[in-house]
């Protein structure tokens, strides 16, 4: 039986947002702006041309509901997903990571313990790793998925051979959340403090926000996009043989 808290196409987005404010990140990644009036998920999806089932599945993830139902997705959905992921990449690299970096700088000025200098270096290095990771997806994996889609829709020739495969991406796909958790632990348990309560709290909130989003991001990649891309790859292989 469907409970009151279940999310379905008739659910009002405003009600979901009141209870789960992080859903605003999902809206931003879909390029949907507030206010949402009293619109339901179905209405919003129609306006923005998004598959309802996909939207409901993503919303469930942002509402801490872990399981992903089996989705019957098409190549159009693959494009929706890569756009969603690309938008979240911009949120990481242009918004939240620079904001975190700025707070670490502030904290390092306020709290001039020598360890804070190390934290600045630690985060700057980590940001470089994240940037490399995101660049790889933006420049190689997402264009590859788009190519698969175009081939699937007959926009480009079935004969075109693409010298890449999802399995290569899977090998390359490393975990970028570890160092965020490390930093949270250092801030919560170990780094000595000096009049930095406010900055430290803001920093921890931002770290939790990006950690939350990254966690869902990886789930979408691993449990939705990769299987869909493999499905498209196999379709092509089957057509060739």
């Amino acid at each position, binding site marked *: 039986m469907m409970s009151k808290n279940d999310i379905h196409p008739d659910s009002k987005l405003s009600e979901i947002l009141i209870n789960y404010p992080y859903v605003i990140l999902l809206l931003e990644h879909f390029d949907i702006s507030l206010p949402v009036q009293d619109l339901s998920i179905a209405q919003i999806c129609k306006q923005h041309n998004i598959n309802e089932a996909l939207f409901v599945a993503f919303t469930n993830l942002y509402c801490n509901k872990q399981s992903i139902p089996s989705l019957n997705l098409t190549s159009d959905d693959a494009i929706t997903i890569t756009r969603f992921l690309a938008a979240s990449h911009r949120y990481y690299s242009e918004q939240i990571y620079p904001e975190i970096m700025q707070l670490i700088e502030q904290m390092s000025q306020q709290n*001039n*313990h*020598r*360890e804070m200098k*190390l*934290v600045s270096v*630690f985060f700057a*290095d*980590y940001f470089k790793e994240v940037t490399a990771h995101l660049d790889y997806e933006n420049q190689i994996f997402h264009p590859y998925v788009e190519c698969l889609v175009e081939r699937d829709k007959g926009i480009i020739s079935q004969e075109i051979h693409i010298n890449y495969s999802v399995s290569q991406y899977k090998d390359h796909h490393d975990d970028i959340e*570890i*160092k965020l*958790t*490390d*930093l949270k*632990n*250092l801030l919560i*348990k*170990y*780094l*000595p403090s*000096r009049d930095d309560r406010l900055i430290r709290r803001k920093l921890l909130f931002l770290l939790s926000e990006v950690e939350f989003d990254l966690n869902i991001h990886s789930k979408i990649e691993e449990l939705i996009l990769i299987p869909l891309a493999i499905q498209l790859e196999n379709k092509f292989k089957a057509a060739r043989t």
Partner: protein
Amino acid sequence: MKQTHILILEDAPIVREGLKSLLDSMRNVHSVSIAGTFEELMHMLECKSFQMVLIGPHYLLIYQSQIQQLRSQHNSIKWIGVQYSLFSEDLLNKFDGVVDVFDDQEILSAKLNKWLEAASDEDSQNRESLSKREEDVLRLLALGKSNKEIADELTISINTVITHRKNISQKTGIKSVSGLTIYAVVQNLISLDNY
């Protein structure tokens, strides 16, 4: 063994130099530094981590609020009064311990060990007690050594190194080597000079 660094602020040259030479000759003391003024002491505490400050008790009267603040910032440092004239018991009770100008090397050494032990006990409780071996592994790891190099240096197998690393991460909640390096500095397992 944890490194022990001591800082002295004392006006009387004979007392100051005498203390330094007694401490320098002790096995478990790694370095003894001298601050010329209270300002210099504050600066030195910023730049390097010390486990103990030996200080003339009258400084506590002059710089009461600053010392209070320093103690809350560097809460693992033991503050020891150096006594050679009469000070009120109230004032001396504010220190973690007192060395007397009549203490000989044996007494001084016993007192010092007691204070340092107390400090390291508190530390290991805070640290969800990494074992001695885990600390050794962590120190080498933070210095940039590979699993193989650590295994060779401690004459243990690579598998044992990996097990230690797992336990270290589990206890601290920190998995990356760069995160663990910061942890090792915070816990004084390595100094920034090594890094």
